[in-house]
């Protein structure tokens, strides 16, 4: 007669049990701020399509302390999203070869930081000076 009785351990609270999991949950949580900001932009577009007074109302609403606080946190979330996104992108794209050699992951990550820096500057330039 078999005396087997395999014990399955519960998963409760797993995300707190390892720093790697905490960082993962933190990464996934950035989605909440990204989503809320996208909705704020969408509301802005609705206001923009309804005319100047409505648009200016949206701009005023962004001046409330609560809104500014939210956007400071959202900025942190968006930057954290970017850092983690660049870190895992080499795992998603096929390996890149240059002159017969596989391009190392570190260089791929650095390249993305440079590209992001250039895009940020171009966007800022277009928004602020054109």
């Amino acid at each position, binding site marked *: 007669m078999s005396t087997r009785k395999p014990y399955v351990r519960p*998963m*409760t609270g797993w*995300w707190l049990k390892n720093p790697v999991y905490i960082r993962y*949950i933190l990464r*996934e*949580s*950035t*989605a*909440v701020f*990204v*989503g809320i*900001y*996208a*909705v*704020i*932009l*969408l509301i*802005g*577009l*609705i206001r*923009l*399509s309804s005319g*100047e007074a409505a*648009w*200016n109302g949206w*701009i005023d609403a*962004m*001046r409330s302390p609560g*809104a*500014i606080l*939210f*956007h*400071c946190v*959202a*900025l942190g979330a*968006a*930057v954290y*999203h*970017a850092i983690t*996104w*660049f870190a895992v992108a080499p795992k*998603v794209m096929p390996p890149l070869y240059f002159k017969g050699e596989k391009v190392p992951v570190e260089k791929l990550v650095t390249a993305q930081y440079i*590209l*992001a820096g250039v*895009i*940020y500057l171009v*966007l*800022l330039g277009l*928004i*602020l000076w054109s």
Partner: protein
Amino acid sequence: MHKRSNEPIVWSLFGAGGVVVAYSMPVFILITGIAVPMGIVSADVLAYDRLAGFAAGWFGKLFLLVIISLPLWQSVHRIFLSLHDFGITGGEVFFRVVLYGAALWGTLLPLYLLIGM
């Protein structure tokens, strides 16, 4: 047994949204949410005439659609997967309809508004 998943649809939108968020959202949050409201830069950069003019052109329409809609897809996809991470295993169809439905609404509504602008 091995039923093909339809995940590639939402995963592609999630991936595109993730790229948009990583490469542009920090700048937009900084301008619309911090720099202009706090008066660090002039509110003229977000003046009505300027934005309305931008939304009138085809490039502007496409640009605004991309920066509003794709981050929404990225967001709802992560939130949907997180439900399972936190042990919420029931109501999958309900959450799919609510979350992905919100992203679809957040795509069609701006599309409609932008075409009319």
